[in-house]
């Protein structure tokens, strides 16, 4: 008697009506004549979203941490600048402090005068833009003394370079700044670099700068 239930289930079988079959045949023929694009199943179409979100959630903080100790020229340095820009929304002195740190690092590395000048300009502009504490200004002054001692460039010459960079086009080549700075040095660090024949720094050093120069001597 159990077959009765099975028989009732078997009776649920239906046949495809001829009218519907004709309509389906026309649709299938049209598809065969002009095949549409083969789209992956819906489940596969969205499969890439989760791995991408997870990878971004892991990689972005990792890149930010790895970029903390980078200096200009490193691969992750733009990441550091971006994270600092975000953090500077909360604390405006972070950017200035890091620029002064980088200035001290490039001086210790004895990097080229162009690099040191760029970092000095960045540091001074960052300090000016922020409510930086007095200690940062003092550190910049010390760095300027170091530059004068190691590179033979007078701070007044660097001042003129800062004004050039800040008042004129910011996109000028670093070698342009080096021209102004190295024109007063006795031994230019890069003798093969193109130079401006006319010296830009013609004024005498002020007394306080001169005192520092005397102290170094």
């Amino acid at each position, binding site marked *: 008697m159990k077959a*009765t239930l099975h028989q009732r*289930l*078997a009776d649920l*079988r239906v046949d*495809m009506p001829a009218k519907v*079959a004709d309509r389906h045949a026309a649709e299938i023929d049209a*598809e065969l004549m002009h*095949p549409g*694009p083969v789209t992956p199943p819906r489940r596969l179409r969205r499969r890439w979203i989760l791995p991408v979100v997870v990878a971004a959630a892991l990689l972005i903080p990792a890149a930010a941490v790895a970029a903390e100790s980078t200096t200009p020229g490193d691969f992750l340095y733009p990441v550091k600048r971006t994270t600092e820009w975000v953090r500077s929304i909360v604390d405006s002195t972070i950017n200035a402090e890091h620029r002064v740190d980088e200035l001290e690092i490039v001086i210790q590395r004895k990097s080229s005068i162009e690099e040191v000048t760029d970092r000095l300009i960045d540091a001074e502009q960052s300090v000016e833009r922020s409510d930086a504490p007095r200690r940062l200004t003092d550190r910049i002054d010390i760095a300027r003394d170091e530059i004068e001692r190691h590179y033979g460039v007078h701070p007044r010459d660097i001042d003129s370079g800062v004004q050039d960079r800040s008042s004129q086009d910011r996109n000028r080549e670093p070698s342009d700044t080096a021209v102004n700075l190295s024109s007063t040095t006795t031994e230019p660090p890069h003798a093969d670099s193109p130079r401006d024949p006319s010296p830009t720094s013609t004024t005498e050093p002020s007394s306080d700068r001169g005192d520092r120069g005397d102290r170094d001597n």
Partner: protein
Amino acid sequence: MSRPSIVDDDLVNGIRARSDEAFAALYRILASDLLSFANGMLRDRGAAEDAVQQAFLELARAAHTITGDGRSLRAWMYRSVRFTCLDEVRRRKRRPEEPTDRLPDTGRVDPSLPDPTVQEALMRLSDRHRAIVVLRHVIGCSVDEIAEILGTNRTAVYAASVRAERRLAKELTNVEYPFDAASQQVADQDTTGGTG
């Protein structure tokens, strides 16, 4: 209960070559079986016809990717219809009050369909159990074929089939529709664990 028709390898090769005749022959062989399957899954004749059409259109688009023999092609078509039906069921659950007369709600018995009481009980089964019951008892597929369609093994299909049949008999009892004595006995065994 009719036995499923065989799809031979020549027909599969014609499908791969996107032959009109091969598609027409495959439609003649499978259309009614697929329609019965979709109708059992959805209890909606119009949606079932659309699901069958969708399966053949998908086959036309992906004909060059078909591998295996005629049995694999049959299973591919049933899987396509099943996925379309599952999507339709999910869509109805998300929007149960969609104002259309083409999609009957699951609680209404359509008198135009054969044996609406059994269909009512079928709709109370889970999607998987419903698919197994329809494939086995309406279409007449073997356990091996059902396993290939559902992507599982023979033992799992057999066990699920037994549970689904018991559940179906119980649902027929619960809604107090007319049923035969054997179904009542199976339902009683299920509720008492076979001890009464």
